């Protein structure tokens, strides 16, 4: 078990945004978090990353509380939104910076990036732009590539498909599938097709609570569609 959530609760005013009794995630699982707006997905991810203090409960990453130590940062990579990018840097500078935090040399970083030529569609590297000058889709690509570059054991992505063009969506799915088994991935998405395609486990949340938690099979998509159209 690589991640465990225990009695996690977050309250804003008199509204409980997240209230999760228990989730256990095994190494190598690809977990999809599905729910409507306001289900508490992003808040939950922020608590996973120790960006929001929960009112009660705890999150254990390899049996260590994320609030108490920094060890989890060395094997966890994430991209929730553009706030995770340093937007006044060029993509190269950003990759170099992230690389240096993980003790990768400039040469390591550029050799890593060569395999992403296709993913970047030649629009990102050597473009002579700061990250803030890119379209949202391209910013997401930078964020995801930077997260994967860290060779994380845990990867957390919030709505990774949302701003991507169709080609890139498919490429991202292939990337994620290729890592399945070795990397533990936690993604949220509104696109039921994509999550059921990529993930082998779906957690359905509503109003901060886990409604369903199950392994995917050929009927999953239908089930989810039925649930959300009801």
């Amino acid at each position, binding site marked *: 078990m690589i991640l465990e959530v225990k009695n996690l609760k977050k309250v804003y005013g008199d509204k409980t945004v997240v209230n999760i009794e228990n989730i256990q995630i095994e190494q190598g699982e690809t977990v999809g978090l599905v729910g409507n707006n306001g289900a508490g997905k992003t808040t939950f991810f922020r608590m996973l990353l120790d960006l*929001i203090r929960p009112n009660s409960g705890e999150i254990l990453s390899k049996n260590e509380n994320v609030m108490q130590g920094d060890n989890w940062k060395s094997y966890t990579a994430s991209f929730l939104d553009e706030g*995770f990018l340093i937007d006044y840097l*060029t993509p190269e500078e950003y990759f170099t910076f992230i690389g240096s935090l*993980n003790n990768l040399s400039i040469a390591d970083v550029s050799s890593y990036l060569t395999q992403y030529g296709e993913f970047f569609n030649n629009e990102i590297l050597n473009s002579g*732009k700061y990250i803030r*000058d890119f379209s949202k889709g391209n910013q997401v690509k930078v964020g995801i590539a930077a997260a994967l570059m860290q060779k994380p054991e845990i990867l957390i992505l919030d709505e990774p498909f949302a701003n991507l063009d169709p080609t890139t969506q498919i490429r991202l799915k292939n990337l994620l599938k290729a890592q399945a088994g070795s990397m533990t991935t936690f993604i949220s998405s509104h696109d039921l097709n994509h999550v059921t395609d990529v993930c082998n486990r779906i957690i359905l949340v509503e109003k901060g609570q886990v409604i369903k938690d199950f392994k995917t099979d050929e009927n999953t998509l239908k089930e989810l569609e039925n649930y959300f159209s009801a």
Partner: protein
Amino acid sequence: MLSTFLSHQKKSFWRSRNRGGSIAAQVVLGFFMLYFLLVAGFLGFGMTVLLPKVFPQQDVMTSFNGLILYYFAFDFLMRLQLQELPTLSIIPYLHLKIPKHKIVDFLNVKALFSAFNLWPFLLFLPFCFITIAKVHGIVVVLAYILSIFSLMLLNNYLILFIKRKSISNFLFTIGGLILVSGFAALEYFKIISITAVSDVVFRTVTKQPALALIFPALTFLVYRINASFLRKNLYVEELSAKQEKKVSTDYPFFNRFGRVGELAALELKLIIRHKRPRNTVLMGMIILVYGFLFYKPQVLQTNSFGMMLFAAVFMTGMSIINYGQFMFAWQSAHFDGLLSKKIDFKDFIKAKFLLFTIASTLLTIAASFYCFIDAKLLLLHLVAYLYNIGFTTVMVLFLATYNYKRIDVSRSASFNWQGMGATQWISIFPFILLPILIYWAFNLFHLPYVGLAAVGIFGLVMLLMRGFWVNFIVKRFEQQRYKIAEGFRE
């Protein structure tokens, strides 16, 4: 329309996150203003009596005339630092059915509500009515009032124009800085005298009251320039920005500091690549001119370092304070990212100290040109430097852990003026007062150099304790980070 804008502004003030802080600042500011208004009124009414006493060897009219332009030159410098640009976050209004000139009008009318536009009335009008009316008659009095009133508005709009222009134009700032320091130096070395020029100008007005009409004409011109500049620039910056190729850069200097240096280099890029922080730092350089105001020969001779220490602390530390008062918020756009990455908070805080130390060192070196006036000033600057890197840095970073207000650095600088005026200065007062208090304690016993040494030693001790302070601030930062991050997300 104007009233709608006003009501929106009122709401944005009362509903803002940092409301408590801004109200407190406004109250303090109000007291200061009241005090200065009282002083101005007292001086204004007393001028008839005071002028002959202060300048016994010259005619009262000459003294009064000489004062006018001198006052407005001083007024100009004060406004440059303190007058706040009227703000209205324009973007939500631009696409609505509101004529652009209405928005411009609002900004211009609002700019009139400044204490600077009250002082001249209290200061100069009593004398006009009491003395000038008796000697020269009502027409001349009207000419004086018209001139003074116009000069006041001239300064008002000129400052606004300069501030706006300098925010969008780096060379303009540098040019202005050189010009102002040039004039200050000329006046300081008695090559030209504002007093004499002022006397000549107003003597002419006394003889030919109609000439006073030149002033309103000038004012109107500046007003028009200002208004048209505003109108042309009512665009979101990106639309007009030139597309130039951006290159990746690396600062080898910082590599020797390891991880800390990397973080410092990251922040340096932030400063260089955004107008707002860049200008905040530049404002700190403009202050280097202040020495000309404070370093007077008679003060230097008697070793009264009190007020000079004030200037020295300002000059060597201003960019620390100017930039530091918004600390962490500069990075608000990617604060979540920084927190979730593998960055040791200790390195993060140390990087800030490193940047501050470098900035203060550079400013101190730049300020050393004052040694041409007197070599003692080098000692004074050294003391101020030690105080700033030892104490000011710690205070600024400590206060930064209480700052939850997001700053959008990437937003166009031209409409993002909050916090470039008096309100922010008030939080700075303690930093400036402390060294002066320490110094004065010794000066009471006529030990000016011991006083200086005490301030210097205080700074040095704080500097030696930096390791302790870093840990202290890291601890605060760890407690506060959720709150800071939450505020920055809004």
